[in-house]
């Protein structure tokens, strides 16, 4: 039920965590997958998150059409499992920019301290 609702609202809403993930996917530029995002978040913000939360956010972003994914190569340290790489779509980029504009606008309205 909730999923349907989200699909209908496609493109209109971006949660805080989703925005963070989306930014990371953008920063990593084609090399974004669970672990690389996790490391990037830790490096940039100091937040610790579990892989599965990142996965969940990625699936949701993909459902909304903000990221696209393709299967990448397997390696020994992955136990021979292939990885799934994510890339930001133009839709995603536009949503990020929207969010940023909105935020800038609001910042300008804030009285100077």
């Amino acid at each position: 039920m909730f999923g349907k609702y989200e699909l209908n609202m496609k493109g209109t809403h971006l949660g805080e965590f989703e925005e963070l993930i989306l930014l990371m996917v953008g920063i990593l530029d084609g090399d974004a997958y669970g672990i690389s995002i996790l490391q990037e978040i830790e490096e940039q913000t100091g937040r610790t998150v579990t892989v599965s939360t990142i996965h969940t956010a990625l699936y949701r972003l993909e459902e909304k059409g903000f990221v696209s994914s393709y299967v990448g190569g397997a390696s020994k340290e992955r136990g021979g499992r292939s990885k799934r790489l994510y890339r930001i779509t133009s839709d995603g980029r536009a949503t990020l920019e929207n969010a940023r504009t909105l935020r800038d606008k609001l910042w300008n309205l804030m009285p100077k301290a």
Partner: protein
Amino acid sequence: MNPPKYIIWLLDHLLKEIYADEIIGDLYEWCDLRSPNSTYKQMHFYALKVLFGSFRLRKLKSTQNILKGLTNSTMANNQLRMSVKALLNNKLFTAINLIGLTISFTAFIFIYSYISYEKSYDQFHSKKENIYRVIKNYKESGEMVRSTPSPLANAFLQQFDGSIQFARFGQDPVVSSIGKNNYYEENFYWGDSSIFTTFTIPFKYGDPENVLKGPNSVVISASTAKKYFGDINPVGQTLQIKVYDGNADYGLKIDGVFEDLPANSDLPFELVGSIQNAFDLYKQFNNHWGFNWLHTYAVIQESDLSRIQAGIPLIIEEALGPDNISKISFYFQPLKEVHLYSNEISGSRTTGNIDYVITLSFIAIAIIIIAAFNYLNMMASTVNKRRKYVAINKILGAGKRELFSQFILESLLAVSIAFGVGIVLTFVLWPFYQSLIAKPIPIDTIYQLSSIGIYLLIILSTCLIASLQPAFILSKIKGNTSAIRNNIRQKLKFQRILVATQFAIAVFLICGTFTIYKQVQFAVSESLGFDSDQLVSIKVEDRSLQSKITDIKNELLSIPGVQMATLSGESLPSEMNNTDLMYWNEDSKNHPVAIHEVSADHNFFDLLDIRFLTGRSYLANNLYQENSEVVINEAAKDLLGINFEINQEIFIGQVPHKVVGVVENYHYNSFKSKIEPVVYFQTKAGSRLSYDNIIVRVAGSDISQTLGGMEKVWKSFAPDEFFTFYFVDQTFDNLYTSDQKFLSQFSVFAGLGILITCLGLLGMILFMADQRAKEISMRKVLGSTRYGILQLIFKQFALYIGFGLLIGLPSAIYFSKIWKEQFVYQIPFNILDAIVPSIVVILISILTIGRSALKISSTNPIKYLRNE
């Protein structure tokens, strides 16, 4: 370092393929990344977090795909798939079945753990196989008594030294003082040092081999030690005690502290003082064979047992003379029987009852049978629906064996699911069950190794009961076109017997609950033969205080609200601790009979409202001595025969007395024990029989103020003593606590049994609605009225109910008769006991099937006929 294998395995099997690689790969990489600076435990924890984080429905495979991945063999896989499909196909029936099975398994696990707990009493002693409790047996009356005389052990040791060892202990409530604090210790026992080598009781401080070796020593339980001294080791300290009965003070050196006895032990002691003190204190009783106060346990090798038993008459002869060989004997009760098989033994405080265990196991099995029959019925009902499936499978080459195992597998799956849910439910409901039976059964009784064997057995047998017959029928269907097209003519006889059996069990359960309820109610509410309302009993333990008991009584009378007060040597309910021999003529002199002795003040009968059959109470100044006046009860009068007359002379312990009155029998103890011959007389302080209870009848609205006044009076006599009192009617009710607990258990499980029967009924009627829809529609078209249809439906169920009543009622009445036998005084059988449960069963069935029956009878025939 790699993530735990089982987590990978679970993820692999549970996640959809498109997610599995990504998640598992990331997990691997993460572990690789972190392994330099985390422990395995941290890693494991993290992997678990990932596992649970991944359990979002969208990421999971469908049930069928999971099962597919789990089974490698194509056939087994196919069979499982078909089983799941079959279960899902008939969602309603499956739900009814699973709910029924789950409830029955939950009930089973509860009852099973209760029973195994009851059986575990005192089974933790390493010498349990060789420990026996010595029971005194009065051969003529068949009475068995737990208390044994003091010289018993020595007499046995003289004859059989080396092949028998004794551990004895006897209760003697004391007040112990630590600094300024006084504690009343009811469970103080004098005991042999061998107690702690006979029984396996771990010690917190001290050495069990080396305690109570000399006089003036004591061993206390860990919780007592904590109460007295806190957490320090108290060994070597001195404990001041004041012995009420002996009117003596001792300083006892603490030899050791034993761990608290577990709840599943019947051993009663919390403090054990050296028995040598008791022998000094009560010297006059040491060689007194008539003074029974010790619990005696013996350690005997099995090979010596029969030899020792054969020697008992010789010991009796030496100690009590040849006359007593035919009267008194001793019996060695094995320790494993002490908890459950002691109801006949008076003074045994064990709470177990083998009858309860047997009844509950019967209920457990009955409930499982009802649920299994439900399953069987519904399987059998769907035979025709499955016919096509079977026939086509046969045509495609399936063998009888594959089909057979497929149906067995299907029910095994259902039963296992139900059992799994049952276990979870048991865990959830455990606290409620504990409070229902008021026993602290540890929850790990559920998953002991021995229990798991029983569980497997019950799962398999339920599965076989439930599916063997339909599996046979179905696998026999031939693989040809006629089997596809034509219905199998089912033999409904078998099914009918099943439903009738379920009804019989339901009737039995309701009727049983009803009888037990009525008997317990009867015991609680029936007149005791005296007026127990507003009676307060005060125990006077202290010997020196007992000498002032008349003064205390007189003082109490001055309190407003105290109507009357009297004195007695027995509390109410009475244990009847003193017994002597009585004779009344030459004939009976050679065969004297036992009679209980009670010292009671002259107004005792008046206060309790006990009626005199004939005669009067003794006079106030009449004290117990030669030729003094006594009162006897009806039971004693019956012994004297029809020639009895007032002022007849009787001899008690060879001293002549004059019977001035006979009182009606009254229940001085529970309805489970017989009213025995009793003689009443007045004594003065200091004798063995002297008064140690003040019984007061209070009146007025402000009971608590009256009690407060009484306490004040008490404190003026004994500033250091506790004022302990109780209401007589409450203590009488408490005699039936275990019966009431049993009643609540029985009725809960009976209720569950009936619930499952109703579920089955519901399934039956729904199935009938489905199967006979066309037939009923045709009947309606042909002119049958709604009423006629209802009649048709109810006629069938009436048959089941009638049959169930026919079998269930007599067996329930028989059970009630046996169950009531533990009560000497029973509520007589009333025809209503059979009618009321029958009506209840009929009403419940009508309520269950009524709605569906109405619906069937009022459907529009068009709905079912238009396709033809």
